């Protein structure tokens, strides 16, 4: 006979405010099989848990029901408490009377009645719970980082520092990511390349880290601790082992018309190219669309000039399959598409640029060699206007509803640098609010205003009118002085919103990681587990989870690495015990279940089955508990009901349905 204990939590006033918890406890006492019921302010507190442990010992409980917040919050807490009291942790059921009852109903009597019903359903289920022991599965001591920007590099370095092997898969020919395109970084104004390149070299030379650049992840299967990933190493047409990185081929290459992605298309690059000088690995890549040899078959200059004869036109894509224990997503971000913002004439005038393009222009290795000049006529701009929140904080479908967080800081930085290098240039910034929180950030912005005399106008630009003279008439409003501001500017810089990498959704589907409508990967819990995805074994690092600047990205990278290290340091992982199992007496061996199993966890064998003394040889299904993730598709596909899922068995759910409908 089950001996059930029911504990009703007040959760301060969160539950007790709307639900008569005493009545729920009293009704619980009348339920079949319940021998102990109590309500208490904070069940998840230490005293609350000791209350459970004592009750289990004193009343020799075989199962407990905690009516409290969502099981997604404290199920593990109460399971551990039960385990400490010697009760099997899976004999615990949670009735969610906070998020799904007290918080969403106003009428006290109605909410109490629903809480009683939810309690009854949990009691009905716990009476049918069977003790389960978590299975164990091995852990491959290797991590995969998808994305080679600062987030990916930092994560990889921190993981390899703990002695684990890490692979970085980077889509572009070199690691470095978005940060490598920046000139200076806030708040220290040190040169982006100077702080990034050492990390890139460190990553390249670290014997625990393997770089797969110009490669993409094609397929991911398996589960935490046992991922199997297919990686496509796209053909570079250059032999990495032979190439010395002398760069002769890039100079001599006759095809120079391809727009350079690294320089945001502001200038062109040769068909055989490395994205930027300090590229790691410093091995060029042949862009087959623009290479005359590949398009027409005639040229071949690069193979002629290459002393190390590292050019190999026959090189093909290579597919490799590697096993990993954990995967970190560090896919970074990109600037949104501004075509729809015709009011700023971004697509009409070459002098209306995004901040990232300005970074390239200011960068010594950039298209203008570091000289700040207008792209239309190359003259030095005397009047520059920055426009903030272009596409951010915007409710219509052109832009993004969130604030991109980093624009205020980098605009202040760019304004300061321009004013410092070209004191005679006048800089105006139109803003809605300046958001520069945190250590030294607001001081940084105040320096831009007070020391470098950047004009900050609280108001917005209505229109940018490019004139035939090359001037850009910026028409805006200053809502502090209620002044109509018209500035004939030489250059307009748009602080455009940022959005996750285009491939984020494709990768999330591959990893079955959940993703929100803005394509940011959803974290397991906004406050308590920000760097893990709800899918076990998948971790998030950098802007793929939400807008953040470099300091926060590095911090997050470290945290993701810590989680990965925590996972890889275990030899055996507790696997989900709620797996499917087939009753061989009833199984027909019709292999319907095998077709619906997403994990291929079901196989068939012919064995002698003893059915009440009648021994017969039959083909029966066998579930590999290590592979099975407990989704339950097979239990419904099975016509004879032989397949059942422990933890959510047919009878348990039917008992819950009965209790709810009574």
């Amino acid at each position, binding site marked *: 006979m089950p001996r059930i204990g029911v504990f009703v939590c007040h959760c301060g006033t969160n539950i007790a405010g709307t639900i008569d918890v005493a009545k729920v406890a009293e009704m619980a006492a*009348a339920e079949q099989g319940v021998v102990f019921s109590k309500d208490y302010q904070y069940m998840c507190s230490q005293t609350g848990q000791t209350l459970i442990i004592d009750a289990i010992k004193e009343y020799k409980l075989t199962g407990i029901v905690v009516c409290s917040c969502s099981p997604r919050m404290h199920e593990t807490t109460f399971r551990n408490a039960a385990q400490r009291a010697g009760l099997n942790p899976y004999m615990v059921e949670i009735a969610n009377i906070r998020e799904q009852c007290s918080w969403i109903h106003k009428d006290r009597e109605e909410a109490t009645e629903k809480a009683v019903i939810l309690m009854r359903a949990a009691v009905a289920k716990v009476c049918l719970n069977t003790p389960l022991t978590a299975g164990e599965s091995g852990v491959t001591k290797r991590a995969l980082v998808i994305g080679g920007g600062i987030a990916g590099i930092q994560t990889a370095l921190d993981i390899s520092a703990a002695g684990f092997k890490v692979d970085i898969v980077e889509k572009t020919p070199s690691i470095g990511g978005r940060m490598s395109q920046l000139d200076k970084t806030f708040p220290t104004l040190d040169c982006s390349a100077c702080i990034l390149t050492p990390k890139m070299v460190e990553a390249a030379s670290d014997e625990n880290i393997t770089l797969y650049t110009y490669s993409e992840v094609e397929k991911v299967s398996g589960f935490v601790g046992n991922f199997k990933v297919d990686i496509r190493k796209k053909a570079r047409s250059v032999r990495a082992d032979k190439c010395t990185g002398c760069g002769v081929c890039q100079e001599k290459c006759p095809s120079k018309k391809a727009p350079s992605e690294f320089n945001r298309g502001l200038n062109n690059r040769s068909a055989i190219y490395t994205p930027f000088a300090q590229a790691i690995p410093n091995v060029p890549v042949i862009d087959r669309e623009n290479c005359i040899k590949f398009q027409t078959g005639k040229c071949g200059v690069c193979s002629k000039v290459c002393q190390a004869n590292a050019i190999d036109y026959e090189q093909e894509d290579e597919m490799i399959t590697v096993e990993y224990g954990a995967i970190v997503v560090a896919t970074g971000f990109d600037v949104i598409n501004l075509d729809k913002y015709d009011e700023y004439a971004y697509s009409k005038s070459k002098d209306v640029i995004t901040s990232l393009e300005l970074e390239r222009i200011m960068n010594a290795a950039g298209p203008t060699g570091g000289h700040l000049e207008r792209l239309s006529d190359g003259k030095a701009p005397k009047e520059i206007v920055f426009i903030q929140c272009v596409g951010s904080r915007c409710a219509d479908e052109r832009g993004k509803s969130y604030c991109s967080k980093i624009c205020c800081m980098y605009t202040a930085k760019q304004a300061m640098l321009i004013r410092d290098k070209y004191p005679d240039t006048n800089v105006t910034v139109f803003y809605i609010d300046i958001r520069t929180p945190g250590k030294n950030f607001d001081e940084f912005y105040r320096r831009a205003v007070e020391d470098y005399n950047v004009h900050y106008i609280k108001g917005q630009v209505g229109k940018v009118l490019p004139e035939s003279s090359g001037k850009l008439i910026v028409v805006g409003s200053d809502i502090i002085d209620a002044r109509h501001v018209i500035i004939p500017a030489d250059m307009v810089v748009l602080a455009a919103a940022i959005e996750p990498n285009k491939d984020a959704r494709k990768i999330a589907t591959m990893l079955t990681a959940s993703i929100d409508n803005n394509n940011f990967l959803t974290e397991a819990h906004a406050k308590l587990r920000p760097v893990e995805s709800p899918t076990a074994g998948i971790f998030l690092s950098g802007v793929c989870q939400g807008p953040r600047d470099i300091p926060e990205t590095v911090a997050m990278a470290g945290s993701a690495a810590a989680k990965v290290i925590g996972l890889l340091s275990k030899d055996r992982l507790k696997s989900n015990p709620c797996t499917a199992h087939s009753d061989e007496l009833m199984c027909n061996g019709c292999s319907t279940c095998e077709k619906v199993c997403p994990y291929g966890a079901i196989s068939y064998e012919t064995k002698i089955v003893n059915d*009440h*003394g*009648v021994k017969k040889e039959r083909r029966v299904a066998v579930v590999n508990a290590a592979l099975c993730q407990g989704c339950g598709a097979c239990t419904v596909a099975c016509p004879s009901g032989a397949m059942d899922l422990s933890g959510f068995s047919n009878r348990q759910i039917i008992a819950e349905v*009965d209790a709810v409908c*009574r």
Partner: protein
Amino acid sequence: MLKISTDRINELMDAIASKMDLILPVENNGQVNFGIYESGVRVRLDALKTVKSAKDAFFPQSETLYSCSKDLKNLSVTPAKLMDRPFAVFGMKGCDIRGLEVLDRVFLSDPVDGFYKARRENGIVIGMVCNTPWESCFCKAFGVDCTEPGGDATACVVGDGLFIEANNEKGKAFLEMISEVLISETLADNCIMRDTVETVSKDGTEKTALEDDKEQSVSKDGTEKTADADDMEKLRAHKESIRRITEKLPLMSLSLKGWGTETPKDRFDSPLWEKLYKPCLACGTCTFVCPTCQCYDIKDHDDGDSVRRYRCWDSCMYSDFTLMAHGNPRTSQMQRFRQRFMHKLVYYPQNNDGIFSCTGCGRCIDKCPQSLNIVKVIKAFEKEGKENV
């Protein structure tokens, strides 16, 4: 003897239904079953055989025995109410009535089944003469005379008249009750009341008619009218023609030699069973349509607030019929198949002084999905008997 013209049958049924519940053959989408007489029901007295026998009226397919409920801590058990009001079952044929007699020996012998007994006492059985026996009928082989079905009263439709004559006290009381209602409704002018008391003997031999020569006939205007002689003659001639037809039906002349009390000992182990059972699907249709099958299973059902213990028909053909703690003694379908026919033709007769547990109604012949039945079993052993001897 009550005579009523066939187009007045509606009123007769209304009369009975006004006094008590009436169960009679009704049609539902082409299938005739015994059903409660209520508005909107299509009565089919002409149908020879219903799908399920009228056994349901006395031994329902599913019946609550008792239910127990618990409020907070105290437990209360409420037994199901026994049948306490009279009800009439109209139109049971000879085979069904013989089936009731078979069931009586089971349920009314010690220990008596209270539910069945209450139903039997309150139930008034009005038998009906078969007008068009089917080729699947073989009641004659078991000594059942379809023209003299028995029961508390016997009805027979001849030409445009329906004759009902009482067979025992209960039948007489029933007829009087009807005639009162009929008179009070000043209904049938040519409704003849005739006192005949017949007793039907156990072994189905020709009934002895104790005829009281006083004939009363109840006419519309309250005066009694005598039942004229040619009605009686027509009735007798009609029954004679039915008996002649039964001679011509193929299965009626089935011989039961070698069964019942004189079954050879080795029949249980005969290899013939192995051949006979093969097509059987173990479905249970034969047991549920049979008027004499009496096995039932007892189960509990949780109604949410209370638990009900009910009994429901069980079929010896089901794979878990004799499932017990240690397992199931009858593991193969052959054993179950053999058990069914041995019980009907051997075990029951040996325990009930020769009365077979089959009444030859032929329902299992009509309804078996794979056309297996008791006649084929008997004939198979008969053929095998001829070959060996």
